[in-house]
């Protein structure tokens, strides 16, 4: 039954132009960045691996941002537009409802990733790093996006308001992004180092650095970054399970 929910969301993305807008925005951003990287006199002096690293960070950041904004309303809209009651009066299970929506948000990430493939090809031309670039952006992006979607869905089920969910999600996203943008000199104390180890955005960027700049392309060499990301997904999954239980206790309609 989650398939029906998933397809409904995909059709909504397509027919309401929401999805089109997101994909065109992503594509234009990738165009701008890759064009500047490869043709601008100053930026093109960067080593090619550094350009790839920069583009990889942009692809995953854009993916995280767009999917977070979209996921903030995908559940809450059912309550705000009063469609939840009709939906839950049909024999749909809560887990199908959530997993269908989850799959729809992951599909949006997948589409953004597909749009980024020509840019990955162009930027990595002439290096042997196309495949590592390709699958690490996919793997790390998917893990990051998966964790964030579950976190946002949990917030959405607790708040039932897209505005509150969006605000909270963006604050969380910013709080994780900002420390990861600090230079290494600002990360020398033990607190900053510990934060870096658990911050999913930091782990994504560090792993990309490891793969594209230091050529450490095996999963073994990136386990130190992938494991914390997997742990982040596990924690957000537990939070989502908790939020789902709370949602069931409160009922589909609050103050009915």
């Amino acid at each position: 039954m989650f398939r029906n929910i998933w397809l409904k969301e995909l059709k909504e993305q397509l027919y309401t132009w929401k999805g089109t807008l997101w994909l065109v925005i992503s594509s234009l951003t990738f165009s701008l960045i890759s064009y500047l990287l490869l043709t601008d006199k100053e930026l093109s002096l960067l080593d090619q691996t550094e350009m790839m690293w920069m583009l990889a960070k942009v692809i995953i950041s854009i993916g995280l941002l767009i999917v977070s904004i979209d996921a903030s309303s995908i559940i809450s809209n059912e309550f705000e537009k009063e469609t939840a009651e009709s939906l839950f009066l049909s024999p749909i299970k809560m887990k199908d409802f959530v997993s269908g929506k989850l799959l729809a948000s992951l599909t949006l990430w997948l589409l953004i990733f597909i749009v980024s493939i020509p840019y990955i090809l162009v930027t990595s031309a002439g290096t042997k790093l196309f495949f590592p670039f390709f699958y690490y952006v996919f793997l790390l992006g998917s893990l990051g996006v998966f964790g964030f979607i579950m976190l946002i869905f949990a917030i959405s089920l607790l708040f039932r308001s897209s505005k509150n969910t969006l605000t909270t999600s963006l604050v969380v996203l910013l709080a994780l992004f900002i420390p990861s943008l600090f230079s290494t000199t600002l990360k020398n104390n033990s607190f900053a180092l510990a934060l870096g180890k658990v911050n999913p955005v930091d782990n994504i960027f560090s792993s990309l650095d490891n793969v594209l700049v230091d050529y450490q392309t095996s999963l073994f060499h990136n386990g130190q970054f992938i494991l914390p990301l997997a742990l982040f997904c596990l924690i957000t999954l537990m939070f989502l399970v908790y939020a789902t239980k709370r949602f069931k206790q409160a009922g589909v309609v609050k103050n009915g």
Partner: protein
Amino acid sequence: MKTIISINNLTKSYGSIKAVDSLSLEIAQGEFFGFLGPNGAGKTTTIRMLTGIIEPDNGEIAIAGNAYPNLKPILHLIGVVPESRGFYEWMTAKEYLLFFAQLYSISNPHKKIDELFGKVNLSERKNSAIATFSRGMKQRLTLARALINNPKILFLDEPTLGLDPQAQEEIQNLLKQLNQNGVTIFLSSHQLNEVSNLCSRVAIVNKGRMVVQGTIAELQKKTNLEGSTLKDIFLALTNNNHV
């Protein structure tokens, strides 16, 4: 006749406000039951508890042999026109019904959908986006959705609200026909004429409590208002609260 809906001592509070207070009633299979009450009397809350949308604080519910808290199986037996009338406005009417038909795993859904469009008189607009529908058309679409699984019991919360008299009559005729075909109907409405015309039995609730229930003749007797209309009885029992 066999009881299909049974409620005993049903209670639901929101904070200090008791929305439904120790409500008990029984509805027989095939009955057309009218559920009346002023605004805030607890009608919608009662329907939402009966259909499993919200959980009661206390009391017992049994529908077609399924007792609370295990009401999930009744979702295949019931059809509901709820109070909240949200739609996926970007869908066409056909896409909307098809989506729900798939949720119910209806075999040959396209045939079923065409049949329902005929019943609610929406065949000509089935490929139009719901966003372009009038309120009446949306009401008819909600009714078509409630009928998609051939329900044995229909819960209707103000099904003719905001409709013009012609559309009201069309829907009333459809409901009559459904009831004649054996569908039990639980109708909550403010249209007292509609309830008088359609319902075999009526319950009036006020401030969450059952005030009276029975046939209209029984209500007239109980209230010593022989010969009076349902509206008179209603106003007398609900302290002249506006309908």
